[in-house]
């Protein structure tokens, strides 16, 4: 028990002292996750909308694929993106590997199915009269879709929250595509994995606490936006 108590004390000291490594890992985690969720939302929300309200061949197959992609292990996504952006890959010329940009690409891929699927579910669960009502009141198809989004905004916000939770807490993509480079691509999760493996339990615990605090703060902000 002393061991855990000491770890808590050390973690508090690290947080209060604004330890450079801790701050760097927090900043990298949050910035990469925020960019990833913005990109994933820009792609995933229209994708979910299109699948939900569109009628096209293989629709069921697309939904099944989307469900499958939600369960995709982060290391598999990391591996696939690694193959694409590594020097031998088709996008190797951009020199993205082991940069925050590579992590953003990987985490965006990770979050898109989550955002799209939650969006799809929220629209499927929405009142079926929304679109016809908007249309018959003279709204254009685009205006009607915007009204639909407005009506299901809580569900879409939940999609974004779920996607953010997934990307900020993942290790595989950040490790494989970022390379866990100290002060550059080291995130809270990769730092926790590394420090714990080195026996630096307190440092790992401090980062774990911060990770939870950041997740709590982001969710509070998003919940506040939901209430408005």
């Amino acid at each position, binding site marked *: 028990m002393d061991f855990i108590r000491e770890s808590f004390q050390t973690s508090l000291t690290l947080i209060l002292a604004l330890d450079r490594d801790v701050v760097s890992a927090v900043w990298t985690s949050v910035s990469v996750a925020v960019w990833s969720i913005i990109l994933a939302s820009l792609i995933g929300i229209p994708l979910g909308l299109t699948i939900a309200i569109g009628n096209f061949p293989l629709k069921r197959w697309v939904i099944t694929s989307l469900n499958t992609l939600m369960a995709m292990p982060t290391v598999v996504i990391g591996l696939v993106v690694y193959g694409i952006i590594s020097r031998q890959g088709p996008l190797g010329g951009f020199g993205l590997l082991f940069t925050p940009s590579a992590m953003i690409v990987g985490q965006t891929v990770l979050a898109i199915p989550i955002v799209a699927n939650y969006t799809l579910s929220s629209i499927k669960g929405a*009142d079926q*009269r*929304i679109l*016809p*009502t*908007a*249309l*018959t*009141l*003279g*709204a*254009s*198809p685009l*205006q009607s879709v915007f*009204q639909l989004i*407005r*009506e299901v905004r809580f569900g879409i916000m939940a999609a974004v929250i779920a996607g953010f939770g997934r990307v900020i807490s993942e290790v595989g993509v950040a490790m494989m595509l970022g390379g866990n480079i100290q002060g550059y691509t080291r995130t809270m999760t990769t730092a926790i994995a590394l420090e714990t493996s080195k026996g630096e339990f307190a440092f790992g615990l401090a980062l774990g606490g911060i990770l939870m605090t950041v997740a709590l703060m982001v969710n509070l902000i998003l919940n506040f936006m939901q209430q408005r």
Partner: protein
Amino acid sequence: MNAQLLLTSVQKCYGNKIGLELKKLALWPGRLYILTGPNGSGKSTLLNILALLTKPERGELMYAGERITWKSRELSLLRKKVTLMHQSPYLFAGTVSDNVAFGLKARGVSGEELRRSVAESLAMVGLDSFEERNVTQLSGGEARRVALARALAAKPELLLLDEPLAHVDKESAEVIEKLIASLPARGTTVVMSTHDQHQNDRLGGEMIQLHGGRLEQPFGLVDNLDTSECKVNGAPLCPALKMHIA
């Protein structure tokens, strides 16, 4: 004069079942039509087709003499002239004012004109002071009146009402009925579906009777008969039922 909306050889199926099959149906401007028929007779299907929300599998629709091609841009323009109030109208989340303003905003109305139109429409349904009330605080009858105000705000040429008086309290029913009866005089064509056979006596509209997805032909009328000479229970038969030989 062209019919406001003319349907020719229209058919809509649900699987193997025919939901609606009409040879010819013409709606003339500034009239009030009462659409009746038992459950499943095709009333809602017809209203959805008239509202250009449902495309029939077969047949042709003409609006003011122009053939409807069902292209997206054309539909957007026509839907600004035709408005349907559903049987259980959906009110968008927000205030009464937000809802009534919706169709106006879609038509680019803003500022003082928007505020004035919203206020006028709410006054028409007797809900003058309800502008800032949240729609969650409305009774069923009030919600129906808000939906009617919302539909009227945009001043449609053709107003379609799917059982507007179903499950409505007496006070709201009187307000809605009086308002509906006054609309043709203002130039709005109204098609209203109902189960209440006596409603036509009060409103003085022209009857369209559907049965099994088809127009009923009381007294053994045939398709090519000039309906202007026909009487149904002593009242002239609806010009909407003018059936011509294609």
